């Protein structure tokens, strides 16, 4: 399973520069959030990937220098702060110093609350992604239930078609969907708690 550590445990383990596994986990957890964050601020895919890379590198540097003080704020806020600056810097470099940062992006970057909101949305998005993967790969929900759910929600078939295909009632199809939702909720809550710890 990909995410099994709380943020505290992860941060503690990050003190060991040789612990490649933990750096991988950290990278997996935050890279996609950072990319989504930058994408949301209007950057293209390539630039967003660069921002994520630069932000993670910068965080590692600051963390090892002891700059990240958990009492002063959550990890997310710290990463947002770095990413914000990286985006400003990136745009500045890209413009060769002459071109001003795109106004719309600049306005968004000035709005701390908006940035936090984007970060939270992206974090939620990442949690849901991880949860869905876990649901499919490791959940104890029986395969037929998952299959009914997929047919209904992913492939957009009508409840009647799904019921017919599986030889059950539409009521059973809805209950299958509900069971999947409950399983997903549990996974999401657990992962959320792991992330919230930071």
């Amino acid at each position, binding site marked *: 399973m990909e995410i099994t550590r709380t943020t505290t445990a992860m941060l503690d383990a990050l003190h060991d520069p040789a612990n490649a596994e933990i750096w991988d986990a950290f990278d997996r957890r935050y890279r996609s959030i950072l990319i989504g964050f930058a994408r949301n601020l209007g950057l293209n895919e390539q630039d967003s990937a660069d921002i994520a890379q630069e932000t993670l590198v910068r965080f590692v540097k600051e963390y090892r220098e002891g*700059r990240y*003080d958990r009492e*002063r*704020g959550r990890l997310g806020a710290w990463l947002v*702060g770095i990413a*914000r*600056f990286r985006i*400003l*810097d990136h745009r*500045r470099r890209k413009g060769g110093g002459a071109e001003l940062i795109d*106004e*719309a992006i600049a*306005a968004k970057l000035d*709005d*701390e*609350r*908006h940035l936090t909101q984007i970060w939270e949305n992206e974090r*939620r*998005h*990442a949690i*849901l*992604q991880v*949860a*869905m*993967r876990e649901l499919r790969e490791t959940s104890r929900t029986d395969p037929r239930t998952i299959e009914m*759910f997929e047919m209904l*929600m*992913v492939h*957009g078939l009508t*409840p009647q078609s799904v019921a017919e295909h599986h030889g059950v009632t*539409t*009521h059973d199809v*809805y*209950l299958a*969907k*509900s069971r*999947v*939702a*409950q399983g*997903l*909720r549990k996974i*999401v809550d657990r992962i959320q708690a792991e992330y919230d710890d930071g």
Partner: protein
Amino acid sequence: MGDAHESIGGCPDRAELEILASGGTSTPELSGHLAHCASCRALLKEITEENDLLGSALFAESNSNDIERIEDQPIDGYEVLRELHRGGQGVVFVARQISTNRTVAIKMLLQGRFATSSQRMRFDREVELVAGLRHSGIVTLYESGTSRGGDVYFAMEYVDGTTLDQWHERVRPSVGEVSDLFAKICSAVRYAHGRGIIHRDLKPGNILVGPMGHPHILDFGIARVANSGDPEETMATEAGQFLGTFAYAAPEQLEGAADRVDVRVDVFALGVLLYEMLAGCRPFEMGDSLAELIRNRLDRIPPAPSSHAAGVPLDLDVICLKALSPDPERRYASAGEMEEDLQRHLDGRPILARADSTSYVLGRLIRRHKVPFLALATIVVLVIASLISLGFLYAEAEHERRVADETLRGFQDSIGIINPQTGQGTHDMSVGEYIRIMEDHVVSELDEQPRVGSALLTTLGLIELAFDEVDKSQALLEQALVLRRDSGPAALGEAYHNLGRVLFRKGQYDNALDSYRNALRERIDAHGTFHPDVAMTYQHLGSTLRRTGDYDGALSEFIQAELIWESLYGPSSEQVAGLLNNRAWVLVDQAREYAAAGRDEESRSLLEDAHFRLLDASAMIRGIASANDYRIGRSERSIGQVLVELGRLEEAIPRFDESLRIQISRQGAQSDGVLRTMLLRASACIQGGIELDKAARDVRVVAEVREQQGSEFQTEAPLKSALSSWRMLEEIHRLRDDPSGLAESTEGIRRVELALERLRSSASTDEP
């Protein structure tokens, strides 16, 4: 969940609730049943939440690219050309309507068919609302439908324009052009208001300006029908989340007071927009929390736009501030009223919302607060500089702000007309006497104006501090602090910060730390973390901790400040360079401690590190400043000092020389900075036994200038400096074996000691 709710007492089948939860329509029977059956309502809520969770998760998993999604599942009758805009909920594409060959904009929900129920509800409402609006200032909706993939969409008029903020940036419109555009915007909003529709999310991105300068309002995604009693309406718009954009939201919107949200929230947003266009900045600070945001908007009337941008006429100041009134009752009652005033202004007719005239009151105040002349140019400069910087503190209430501005201007006027050559009976006035006169004015005439009073006390306190009169400064700044207890976090933070400075200067580091920490709390409360004032207090906290020997603590505070500066101004700014300097000095302190403990190697290593940091800072400053910039001079001096610590005296002296060259060219030969650098250079010369003649000349200059300053200002600090300079000169003459020089410096020492004694005894007899 699930079965427990079903088929009890005529409850509907789960499938019916599932259909309803997926956006299906309810029958009167079902609605009637839901109104009475709590368990069915609970089940409906549960299903809706489960669907929303699954929808969001599937969307997250698919991570689909919208344009590809649409290409895969096209909209009949349209050819999608490109993505135009992406908002929090929706995405807008440019498309061609095949039948008419016209370009249209197609809006779809970002999450497509995975959209949550509330997102779908808002989308449907936008379709419903915009479909009923026909106005040249509002984008026209052509049709709505569902794509083959099941995504709901609507096609609307495509405006080949720019958003309001981009228009402002590109066109740089005159005040008249802004007024004209806003009259048109108000007209469109008035039209919507007239049909009972409140937009609730007016912001630059929702107003497009076409090529002919005509505005088009779009995105009625969170609009609301005024006075609607529809319970679904209430549910959709009060779902515990704030809808809209913080920067443009009226206080009652931020408070979530749904019952008080009416057309005047749009008036408020129009006020913010107009303010931005006129002043070039937003009227309110964003704050750090929703509570702070609300407080900012409830408690603070912003300064008039004309205070940010010259040339904004009084009429527009008044129109803006009326629209921005925290109390909806005092705002324009509708966009139509605002439009009327803008039109009146454009036509040169008097506007209806004339502010209360304050000219009579102000004129009287100016006459009352004229102060006596003063012939000390140095003080004049200090006073004016302080007053100007402090003038920004009064922006809390328009009336008081104006009174304060005018009062301060009165002081400035009285000071500004001083001619030091002709000032009557003022040549013998000491700093203390002048300040006492000022204090009398503060106490006797301005006690009815606590904000003005506290600002003047602060000014006086800072003047005292500049002259090292720390006790007097402390007393004044403490009084100012008391007056500012209820003045909001920004002013209170400023007061704590200033008090921290004086306590620091007095060497009361623990008290200074307390004061700075209070300042930090208030300033973060007022401005959020990423603000220059916050960085500055962190910086002072760091410097104070450095003095207490808490080097780790100091570094930690400096790093906080550095991160804020970096975030505000980029990686290579004057501020970041300053922080590098500060951090270097912490290393120097640590190095000195190590040296004192005999740990020479570690000490040297820290000094080397400090040296490199200073070189970095110097390179940073050179990258952003001209070759003769005073900051380069300061930086060279710091490098020289560390080189002295490293014992590399011959390298240090050219650094001091370069620093002096720049400082003298910028500040004159006898400025404080120059005198200090001269002493540092001389000290290095003494230490290395090199260039002693030049050192002697420099030190004599310092001693004489300081002595003269001491007798002129009748303050201790310059006299103390003069004393140590004469002593240094004595040492140089001893090294040079120069008896006449030695006699001269001994005489200087005696003279200054006497002056100091006289000053101290006169100060003690002055005390009550």
